[in-house]
């Protein structure tokens, strides 16, 4: 009954590396989102996409980019990872009546 799948549960990357976080949904949803979640700050929107090849910046897009080449797949890219990007990353997929999250990726940048 998996709906939203993130490629990794845990990642450890070095400062300056290019990092790819992948997310796949099987519900044919148009809207997909990337959030990061940090203690005391809640969920903050990084980017979202409302159609293939379409994207919009969220509240904290700096240092990130995204790619959506197919409807079911939404990728988050850290162009040059920094220690302040250590966080829990959550992908979500939404239609108007429902919204589901992946299991999260705990990224540590050292």
């Amino acid at each position, binding site marked *: 009954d998996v709906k939203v799948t993130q490629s990794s549960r845990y990642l450890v990357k070095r400062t300056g590396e290019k990092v790819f976080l992948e997310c796949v949904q099987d519900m044919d949803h148009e809207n997909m989102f990337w959030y990061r979640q940090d203690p005391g700050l809640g*969920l903050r929107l990084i980017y979202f996409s*409302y159609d293939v090849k379409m994207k919009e910046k969220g509240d904290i897009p700096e240092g990130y980019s995204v790619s959506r080449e197919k409807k079911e797949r939404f990728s988050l890219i850290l162009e040059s990872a920094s220690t302040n990007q250590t966080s829990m990353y*959550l992908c979500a997929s939404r239609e108007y009546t*429902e*919204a589901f*999250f992946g299991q999260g990726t705990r990224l540590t940048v050292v």
Partner: protein
Amino acid sequence: EDQVTQSPEALRLQEGESSSLNCSYTVSGLRGLFWYRQDPGKGPEFLFTLYSAGEEKEKERLKATLTKKESFLHITAPKPEDSATYLCVPCSGSARQLTFGSGTQLTVLP
């Protein structure tokens, strides 16, 4: 600007002690309100969608209700496994994004 406030921030209950969590929102053109449960280190788990004032939905020991300005999550005779953070997410018809509350961290003691 859409806003949502959840209270209390944290709640400790004894097993079997019923209580309610509150979600106050200001959203233009509410399309629906989602409730999620989130366990530490995991992605939010979808619980309910409420669409209109007066609507109620139930799942096991949880019942969610909706008014024009608030939603309540009632927990009846909770068990320790109900311990989690509960997130309220009102969805605006004018925005694709999801506006998250900061959540209520519920702890149920045996």
